[in-house]
């Protein structure tokens, strides 16, 4: 128990409230989409047009296609070859180089993996062009991009989400100090108290239980935002006289150029098989640097396996495919504590180290954190509901709080609708997302808050209930078809959506209305 003077308590409460309030709605958006993005791979698989067996990473069989596409690419723009396993059994192959203006550009192929891999799309340009062209994974990408950078241009979006992480950390730490009876009140929600007190208790109890993970998610999220956009460039300025590329090469252990004699590409299938054999799991990323030269080097990244938290990385000679050794996953060329700590950030933030089980738990932790933020915002504005400005603010928070879930549910409607009507998926997703948010906002301005909340909950229920059918209409795998191929994921997601839809449509007990009350000082 932490003892505070009344003045210090008031100051901390103000910091706690304002740190949440100023960026709270954006924070709520980032947390909600983060919870959904935990299942990005599963969403990608579920939303694919026709069932393609999940490859579970990069599997052998791609080499002939990669060699052919590499040979056909512009010789001036093929210094690097990247392979990424993507949701829904897709593989992204990028062949890139530096153009005359120094800008990185090249070609990205979206490949349907499997026994006979085939190219689905080819996009020439920069990374931004590649992202815009990813129609197949547009649904999962929408949630991920909204979570990572709120769909804002680089680097502003990523800086803003980093700032949100810091605000969340501040709110968590001040909440920890403010809530003096953390253990004693872990189960105390006053049922018979005033409705405002009950909601205050519900906010505190949810915050107490999710506190360690909220801190963890906020810290790791901020790390991801600031490490690449601020930390490393700042280090490059100080230590490398502004040469960012050389700094990145040193930090990430990229081998320096040493032998520019022409050489063929190694056999990718051999490298992928060997990495899988050594690591016990299929690789998820491959990076080839100095492509087509004698000093070419391949690094293969494997996800965590066998109960480990961190993944592994192996180096190979890029021309012969010879195994060179295991390398730190992130930082430097030799094992270090810094690399171990940096490599922990990803599993701790994404929760993907234990398959569906850990993802499901991270999803529920994300929902708990979102609930804490929303209930805190509503509590703060309700306590000040005597003033018109706070009443107006309360409505806006309610509009986003209830409208965002509806808007997120409308995104797959946009995705599947676009597929039915042959529209661009990104545009259609944005159109429905924006329209739903606007409708929710209008409802919350026109109707009493409780009525608007019930209507929006039912709209969410209807939206969720229709998704399995819409997926089928848009060419998704049917349940019998999925059962035939032993694919349970789509059925599981469909059933989960229907269950949540039922919960949303279930008639609930009306909540007592809250009248404006004098401020409740306990925090």
């Amino acid at each position, binding site marked *: 128990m932490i003892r505070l003077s009344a003045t210090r308590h008031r100051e901390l409460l103000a910091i706690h409230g304002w740190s949440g309030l100023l960026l709270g709605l954006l924070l709520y958006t980032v947390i909600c989409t983060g919870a959904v993005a935990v299942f990005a791979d599963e969403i990608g698989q579920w939303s694919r047009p026709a069932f393609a067996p999940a490859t579970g990473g990069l599997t052998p069989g791609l080499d002939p296609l990669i060699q052919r596409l590499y040979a056909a690419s512009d010789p001036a723009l093929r210094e690097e070859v990247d392979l990424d396993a993507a949701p829904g059994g897709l593989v992204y192959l990028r062949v890139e180089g530096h153009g005359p203006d120094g800008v990185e550009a090249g070609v990205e192929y979206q490949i349907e993996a499997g026994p006979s891999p085939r190219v689905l799309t080819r996009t020439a340009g920069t990374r931004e062009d590649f992202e815009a062209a990813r129609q197949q994974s547009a649904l999962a990408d929408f949630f991920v991009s909204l979570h990572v950078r709120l769909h804002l241009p680089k680097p502003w979006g990523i800086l803003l989400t980093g700032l949100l992480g810091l605000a969340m950390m501040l709110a968590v730490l001040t909440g920890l100090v403010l809530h003096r009876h953390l253990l*004693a*009140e*872990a*189960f*105390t*929600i*006053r*049922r*018979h*108290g005033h409705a405002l007190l*009950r909601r205050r*208790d*519900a906010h505190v*109890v*949810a915050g107490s*239980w*999710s506190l*360690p*993970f909220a801190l963890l998610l906020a810290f790791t999220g901020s790390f991801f935002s600031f490490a690449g956009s601020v930390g490393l460039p700042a280090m490059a300025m100080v230590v490398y006289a502004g040469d960012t590329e050389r700094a990145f090469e040193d930090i990430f252990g990229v081998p320096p150029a040493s032998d520019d004699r022409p050489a063929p590409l190694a056999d990718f299938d051999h490298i992928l098989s060997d990495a899988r054999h050594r690591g016990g799991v299929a690789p998820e990323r491959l990076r080839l640097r100095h492509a087509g030269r004698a000093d070419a080097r391949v690094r293969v990244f494997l996800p*965590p396996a066998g*109960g*480990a*938290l961190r993944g592994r990385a192996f180096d190979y000679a890029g021309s012969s495919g010879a195994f060179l050794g295991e390398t730190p996953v992130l930082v430097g060329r030799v094992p270090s504590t810094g690399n171990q700590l940096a490599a922990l950030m990803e*599993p*701790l933030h994404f*929760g993907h*180290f*234990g398959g569906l*089980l*850990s993802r499901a*738990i*991270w999803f*529920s*932790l994300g929902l*708990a954190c979102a609930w804490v933020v929303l209930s805190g915002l509503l509590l703060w504005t309700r306590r000040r509901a005597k003033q018109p400005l706070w009443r107006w603010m309360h409505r806006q928070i309610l509009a986003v709080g209830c409208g965002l879930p509806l808007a997120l549910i409308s995104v797959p409607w946009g995705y599947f609708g676009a597929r039915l009507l042959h529209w661009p998926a990104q545009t259609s997703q944005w159109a429905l997302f924006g329209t739903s948010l606007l409708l929710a906002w209008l409802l919350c301005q026109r109707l009493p808050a409780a009525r608007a909340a019930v209507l929006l909950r039912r709209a969410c229920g209807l939206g969720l209930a229709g998704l399995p059918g819409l997926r089928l209409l848009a060419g998704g795998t049917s349940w019998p078809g999925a059962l035939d191929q032993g694919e349970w994921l789509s059925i599981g997601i469909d059933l989960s959506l229907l269950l949540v839809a039922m919960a949303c449509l279930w008639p609930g007990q009306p909540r007592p209305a809250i009248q404006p009350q004098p401020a409740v000082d306990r925090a």
Partner: protein
Amino acid sequence: MMAALPLAALSLAALGLLAWRDPKRLRGRRRGALSWPATVRLALLAVALLPGLLSLRFGGAAATLIWAGAVSTGGWLIAETFSRR
């Protein structure tokens, strides 16, 4: 790693018992006399934490994180459930 689930269930069972006879919760319902004595509460707390130590010792960091995440979410749901009774 799957062993984390039964261990989390054991912890949640102990937390459920703690919540059922939690003194502060029962005092709010004017039934404080029914609450567990302090020794029982301590024992239940130890039972709730012990699976975490076991998962750290035998299951590794991944299993412990899964255990901790499941207990955090489950503990919150237990508190919400008992507040409605």
